[in-house]
């Protein structure tokens, strides 16, 4: 595994200081939560993402993007996770961008994504568990286009997104890869019901009742959408893994600070070996999860055939490590960790949502087994 280049280190530092200052919990997450923001994030901050070029991190340089990849996205996402900064970076700049790459939709949407005016997201889940192969939302040919019927859920930022990349079945039956097609569904086409999630982010349930689209709404090829969908999902999984590493690292840094200052029995609780060993174990697990997330990103960028396996490894590992980090975090904070006033609980909430996104620990363990032939 190669280490970061100087350019990558610079990007990491830029993202770290930007998100530490502008993306801080008090300025963003708590502010928008406590003012009842319907988008779940600040559009002014998203414009700042755009000013730094980050909205176009995965967009080629030709239309004006940074032309970078999954690895650079991961570096930014770890900082996003560390600060719990709400934004559509993962959904739009990483997943949405990847889902339309190389198509006419890219020409149509990239400029607005770059400027921060348009946000994209991906609609794939139809039930409470992630199962993309089971996609049942129907798209039937009618006239010059298609008519969509069915529903989606857990569409992050789906209530405010300008375009939803929607996985639908144009042929075959649930369980089959063949017959899946991706559609570009503009805002206002499907019925939107907003779901406020445990971490104060917003997701949508989308209901499609005879939603008619032209045939140019198809992204890529009809019936052959599975590989494009998988690539977008894997980019999302590797990205979510990196964000989870940030969540774990942020929660653990906060917990270590607490261990260093909280006094009981006349000494700082960080002196107790029972806590030291748990903290040291956690440190190692976070390092390992980070290595797994970066490895997946590197394999995605190099187009390696093992990218899918390693995206599953990264997502499963990072989700379980983040879960451990936030549980230990709340426990080691004691009573204060249970209060809304303290930030540690916010890490627990974010970890749960990211852990579920694009497949949970169990989904990805099963993927690892399947991809390994057992």
């Amino acid at each position, binding site marked *: 595994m190669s280490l970061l280049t100087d350019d990558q280190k610079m990007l990491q530092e830029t993202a770290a200081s930007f998100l530490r200052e502008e993306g801080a919990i008090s300025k963003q997450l708590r502010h928008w939560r406590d003012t009842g923001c319907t988008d779940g994030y600040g559009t002014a901050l998203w414009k700042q993402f755009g000013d730094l070029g980050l909205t176009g991190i995965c967009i080629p340089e030709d239309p004006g993007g940074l032309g970078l990849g999954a690895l650079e996205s991961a570096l930014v996402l770890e900082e996003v996770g560390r600060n719990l900064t709400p934004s559509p970076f993962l959904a739009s700049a990483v997943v949405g961008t990847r889902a339309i790459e190389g198509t006419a939709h890219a020409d149509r949407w990239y400029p607005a994504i770059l400027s921060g005016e348009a946000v994209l997201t991906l609609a794939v889940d139809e039930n409470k568990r992630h199962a993309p192969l089971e996609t049942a939302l129907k798209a039937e040919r009618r006239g010059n286009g298609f008519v969509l019927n069915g529903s989606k859920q857990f569409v992050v930022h789906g209530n405010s997104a300008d375009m939803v990349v929607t996985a639908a079945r144009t042929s075959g039956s649930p369980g089959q890869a063949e017959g899946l097609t991706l559609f570009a569904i503009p805002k206002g086409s499907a019925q939107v019901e907003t779901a406020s999630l445990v971490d104060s982010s917003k997701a949508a349930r989308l209901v499609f009742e005879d939603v008619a689209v032209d045939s140019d709404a198809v992204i890529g090829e009809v019936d052959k959408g599975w590989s494009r969908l998988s690539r977008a999902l894997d980019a999302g999984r590797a990205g979510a893994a990196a964000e989870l590493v940030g969540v774990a690292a942020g929660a653990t840094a906060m917990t270590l600070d607490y261990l260093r200052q909280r006094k009981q029995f006349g000494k700082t609780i*960080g002196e107790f070996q029972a806590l030291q060993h748990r903290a040291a174990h956690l440190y*190692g697990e976070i*390092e390992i999860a980070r290595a797994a997330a*970066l*490895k997946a990103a590197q394999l995605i960028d190099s187009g390696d055939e093992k990218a899918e396996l390693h995206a599953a490894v990264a997502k499963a590992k990072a989700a379980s490590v983040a879960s451990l980090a936030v549980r230990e975090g709340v426990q080691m904070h004691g009573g204060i960790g249970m209060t809304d006033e303290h930030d540690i609980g916010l890490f627990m909430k974010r970890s749960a949502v990211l852990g579920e996104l694009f497949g949970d620990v169990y989904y*990805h363990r099963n993927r690892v087994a399947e991809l390994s032939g*057992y």
Partner: protein
Amino acid sequence: MSDLDRFRAETREWLEANCPAEMRHPIRSEADLCWGGRNWAFQSDAQKRWLEVMADRGWTVPEWPKDYGGGGLTPVEGRVLKQEMARIGARSPLTSFGISMLGPALLKFGTEEQKRHYLPQIARGEIRWCQGYSEPGAGSDLAGLQTKAEDKGDHWLVNGQKVWTSYADKADWIFCLVRTSSESKQGGISFLLFDMLTPGVSTKPILLISGSSPFCETFFDDVKVPKGQIVGEVNRGWDVAKYLLGHEREMIAGMGLGSGIGTGGTSNTLGGWLTPADPMLRADIAAFDVDALAFAAMSERFAAMWKAGEAHPASPSMMKYAGTELNKQRMELVIAAGGSDALEWDSERSNNGKAPRDWLRSKGNSIEGGTSEIQLNIVAKHILGLPGA
């Protein structure tokens, strides 16, 4: 053609001409290793020839200086050599604690005379070394060791006992931690080298739960050691020991490096035992494989960071802890997948007992070279900076 390309081409050609066909298989078991030493019985002519031609070229220790029996290669050339050996499946010509442990310590702390005397013997596999660290009363608390070396003017007089000395019964020389002063715990330790044939040295193998005896008790009874055989300064042996323990931990950490169970890494150990129809076991193995592949990524990253000087100096402790715990878990799952077959002590069903023996042997992984608990202490203190750790 760049210099490196030329080096690669020459290396490839040389290996092709000089690596015996029998040596072009990866090491399958302990029995395939070549340890060298005064009493070494080569398993084949090929094993002997392979050691000789590699030693002549300095390639048993490719990156040591030529003056000390090494190949004088740069790290980049060393990597090319490794790649070219791997390309034809060439096994390492020599396995030795002299190479992996004592050598690096001598290179850093030895006098010029010591380097010129001991290093070439190590490089040629002429002397097999063992390590005398732990004692019955000094395990995790290693610096509490009591084996005494008294200054008798022209020699040191050594009395005491070591334990967990790997292959002491087969070794020619020992590098040993001894107490030369009782005034300070860590500051009264010296790093001493001596011949195992010196009168007063005796060894007794320890039978492990796995049925093998890789370790010994080693006794010193009025052992006379010449004055010049201390490495580093008198009473400063702890510095040498700590440096060397770092190397040992890196080595042990590498044991967990193999990939997952179901992902092919240990499929031969599993020997077709895994029954995917058992959904609970499959789930545990899948969970393990996630951890194993993630740790493999960590190992790659750690190696790159360590080389570049970007790793925390205490990070080998984290690697040792994670790698050994993972390996124990691996063996638990392998033995579970093997069912009652895997419990047969010496039948073909258990790969001639390899399965149960490896499982039992793995329990020592998180004890030897510093227990998991000691590694966690080190991480808590040196990396996390927790108070009083």
